[in-house]
């Protein structure tokens, strides 16, 4: 079987931005209030967890626990929402898949980018909290940007993997939902790493989300730069997931229209 499709001047960038902006508009139904509603969920989670873990039980020794908690929640909920909606993204655009050709990878990519806009808005909210909590400004904050980019690329890779399997195995959404629940507690989001016995620390080392969240807090709150080995290892991990996602996706994409 050989295919030669010669398709010049297909404007893929324009299509990505169109999909991204349209989805964003639709999600927040054309209103700024729409975005505020979407903030309600992570803020409520933050409020409840903050109350439970700083009033009922106390984790000693965490500087600026509210920032520690909120940054963890924002980063984790980005990962969780991006991968869940990315998984469904091909399905929600199924009518297009069946009728028009364009590079399929545009769909999960723009789905991730839509969530990235929300992430950036959430970062504004976080910086308000940071200002109110009077966290010292550290020059290391620029590294937080790199961490966020890694987070976006990681979520993109996972979305590519999930979406390409979801068409064939629809119960993947349940499995992934359970996995995310587990991940929330297996990642130091609400608790500090040092209350966990050392023999479990391996869990955090192989968990890219734990590593990214840890680095993010380190540069934001403590003003410390992560070590070279840490940076290198994160980069490799994220790149591996992303490349794996692209390869698997491209291999499976030609059958998407048949699996719908």
């Amino acid at each position: 079987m050989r295919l030669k499709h010669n398709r010049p001047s297909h404007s893929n960038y324009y299509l990505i931005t169109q999909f991204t902006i349209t989805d964003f508009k639709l999600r927040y139904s054309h209103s700024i209030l729409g975005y505020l509603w979407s903030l309600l969920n992570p803020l409520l989670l933050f409020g409840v967890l903050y109350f439970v873990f700083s009033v009922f039980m106390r984790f000693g020794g965490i500087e600026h626990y509210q920032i520690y908690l909120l940054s963890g929640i924002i980063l984790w909920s980005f990962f969780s929402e991006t991968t869940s909606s990315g998984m469904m993204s091909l399905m929600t655009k199924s009518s297009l898949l069946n009728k028009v050709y364009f590079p399929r990878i545009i769909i999960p990519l723009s789905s991730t980018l839509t969530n990235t806009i929300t992430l950036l808005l959430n970062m504004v909210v976080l910086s308000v909290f940071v200002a109110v909590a009077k966290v010292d400004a550290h020059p290391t904050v620029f590294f937080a940007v790199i961490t966020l980019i890694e987070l976006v690329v990681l979520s993109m890779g996972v979305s590519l993997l999930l979406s390409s399997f979801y068409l064939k195995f629809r119960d993947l959404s349940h499995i992934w939902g359970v996995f995310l629940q587990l991940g929330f507690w297996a990642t130091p989001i609400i608790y500090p790493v040092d209350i966990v016995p050392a023999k479990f620390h391996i869990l955090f080392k192989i968990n890219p989300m734990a590593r990214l969240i840890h680095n993010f807090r380190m540069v934001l709150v403590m003003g410390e730069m992560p070590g070279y080995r840490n940076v290198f290892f994160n980069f490799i991990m994220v790149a591996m997931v992303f490349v794996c996602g692209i390869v698997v996706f491209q291999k499976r994409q030609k059958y998407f229209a048949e699996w719908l």
Partner: protein
Amino acid sequence: MNGIIELDHVSKIYKIPHLKTDNLKTYLLHLRKMRKKEIFYALKNIDLKIGPGQFIGIIGRNGSGKSTLLKIISNIIVPTTGEVTVRGKISPFLELGVGFNPELSARENIYLYSAILGLTKKQILDCYSDIIAFSELEKFIDMPVKNFSSGMLVRLAFSVAIQSNAPILLVDEVLAVGDAPFQEKCFNVFRDFKENGKTIVFVSHDMDSVANFCDRVFYLKKGEEMAAGKPEEMINRYQKDIGVH
């Protein structure tokens, strides 16, 4: 640029498992049953060559593989065997307005749909006023398209699609919805396209338009190409087979 389509011994085989599933649980529970498959030829050994400026009709009964053929040409599905060569961009008129979002206004949908059809931002801005003029929907341009009638939707989509400037057009029974004056307008556009050397593949059950427009007709029967030839001849054979006349 000129559009060329070549299909060389193209077959599309669908393997239909005895047990069809879209979830992992059933798949794992019935591994052995899943492996038993029925083989079904949607297309069998199709050869086809369409050059620039040709207006080709494809006729055949439901399920004869017409849509599969168009999908293979437009790269939506891949053939099981054989070789497909397409030179030039394709503008699919397979189902007009398939990318429309009901919540968005007509204006927003124009941008979205043109991006889906592969236009660049500059191209869209250049022809934006032409699109609106052709669709005759100036008054409704900021209205969400969920309030549009199906005729209005087709008009809007068609107006965008003809701007895509692709040398190859695939048209699948899309003109059935618009009213007579608009259909006339569409056919005029197709006539222009043909004169400008565009390649058009037209799938229809409307024998009058096939006879009117096509230079050559392929008659598909159960996924195997029965014949290719002059429109009148093919239409006669088709109508004899289905028992008209």
